[in-house]
Structures are given as structure tokens and as C-alpha cells.
């Protein structure tokens, strides 16, 4: 059985590793978590994003949530804001897509075109 005492050990182990969060702009990954997003499956997507960013120890990348982004039929929606670049909107995201989004877009800077809202709208008419 886990106990809160374990937190003490984690605390001692990690206190030295914590960076003071850099001021200034980093990459923001935002997940729509209103009723529409949650009902469409945003929770596991958010979890997968947080885990992937933590696993890769990405600095200056934050994962946050927001309310309804406005295109409820395309939820779960993930938006990526990078300083100096245009926003990229991914639609109908599932946890299996998260690995590619983080690896190709967040790490390597190449948005995954076929997951974007633009591609989706072009190809589902």
C-alpha cells in the first residue's frame, strides 16, 4: 500500500533536479476540456500528452487545458502555440496520435499535417 511518506523520498530526490521555470515564451500545448471535449475522450489525450512531455523531459513545454474551443464536432482538439509561429490545431485526437505529435511537431518542429483541422476539413467533404 502506498503511503504519503513516499512523497518525502521523492521530494528529497527531486528537489535538486528542479529547474526554476524559465521566464519567457515556451511552447504551449492546450487541450479543450469542456463538456464536449471530455465526452469525446479528451481526458486520456491530456494524460498521454503530460506523460509524453514528462518522459522526454522537454523543457519549456507546458501542457494546459482550456474550455470549449468552439468546434465541438471535432473534439478532442489539441492546439499547439509556438512562439513566433502560427497556431496549429489538431482535431479528433486520440492517445495513439500523441506520440507522433510530440515527436514530430514539438521536438522536431514539423506539424503532423494529416491530423490538422485544415487537412480534416479538406478531406472530409
Amino acid at each position, binding site marked *: 500500500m502506498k503511503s504519503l511518506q513516499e512523497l518525502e523520498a*521523492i521530494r528529497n530526490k527531486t*528537489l535538486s533536479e528542479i529547474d526554476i521555470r524559465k521566464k519567457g515564451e515556451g511552447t504551449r500545448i492546450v487541450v479543450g476540456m469542456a*463538456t*464536449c471535449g471530455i465526452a469525446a475522450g479528451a*481526458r486520456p489525450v491530456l494524460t498521454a500528452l503530460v506523460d509524453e512531455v514528462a518522459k522526454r523531459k522537454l523543457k519549456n513545454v507546458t501542457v494546459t487545458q482550456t*474550455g470549449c474551443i468552439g468546434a465541438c464536432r471535432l473534439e478532442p482538439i489539441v492546439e499547439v502555440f509556438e512562439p513566433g509561429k502560427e497556431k496549429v490545431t489538431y482535431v479528433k485526437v486520440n492517445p495513439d496520435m500523441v506520440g507522433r505529435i510530440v515527436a514530430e511537431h514539438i521536438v522536431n518542429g514539423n506539424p503532423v499535417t494529416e491530423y490538422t483541422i485544415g487537412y480534416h476539413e479538406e478531406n472530409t467533404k
Partner: protein
Amino acid sequence: MRDISLHILDIAENSIRAGSSLVRIGLHADKERDELKLVIGDNGCGMSKELLSRVKSPFTTSRTTRKVGLGIPLLAANCEATGGRLDIESEIGKGTTLTAVFQFSHIDRPPLGDIAETLATLTIMNPSVDFVFSAKYNEAFDYDTRQIKAALGDVPVTQPDVMTFIREYLKEGIKQVFGGNEI
């Protein structure tokens, strides 16, 4: 909404948006009374009597981008489908308490879903808000982010090892209360 854990996540978001610093969530299953009761109470900004009177309508929302808000109506519909009910009490400046009652054995009662994941998500994504959770069925389990944050000191809840600990701690606790099988 597929399950009760997603309703909790959804309703708790309302509390957070109402500026709450503390959200209390209680989940109590009682076989003898054939009842499953979910209580979510916050210390947020509260609602006026007028807003409270129309909050169960899908055409009520505080958002300005569109005219519908479905979180509360969906939960109310799910409660009522089992013969249960949804009550909301609120006072401006004090906070809001929502009580959802389901008939426990009813075929239409949604499953619990992944309660641990909902609580972990709430904790990790809202580090400045505290959550107190208590579950009761076979046994009791209590979770309080204030204790966790006190033990952590300067280490944030978003630290990867801490996130893993929180998830596993919740999973174990909730499994202990409700058993391994979905109730």
C-alpha cells in the same frame, strides 16, 4: 458522458472556473439503500437564485461563445434515468454544492469509470486548487491534495515522479473501496 468519472471531471471544471480554492468530492455507494451518491462542493463564487433556478436547462451557460451548456443537464438526465435526482445549492460568495443521486442497481446507472484518472487529472492540471475526495463502499478512502502538497514542500505536483505516485496512490485507494471489478 460514458461514466461517472467523466461527469466528476466536467462538474469540477465548473467549480474551478468559479474561482474555488477547495473542491470537495464525495462518492458514496450504499447497497442497502440501493443508492449511489455523488457530492461536489466548492468555495467558489456561487450562483444567484435566478441563475440557480435555470441552471439545469441546456440553454443556460455563463460562456459567451455560444448559447448552450450541457454539463449539468447531462448529469441530471443520467440521474433521473435511474429514478434518482440532482440537487444544487448555492450561495453567492460562499460556493456551490451539487448532489447527484443514482439508484445503485438500476440498469441505466452509468459505471464509475476511472475515478483515479479523473482525480489525478484535476490535481495535476490545477496545482493552485486543492481537492478533497472521499469514497465509501466496502471500505473508506480519503484523498487530500493539501496533505500531498505539504509533504512535497517546494516540489510541484507536476513533477513526473510525483504524478506517477499520485496516480498509483489513487488507483490503489479506489480499488480498495470499490474492489477490482467495475461496480
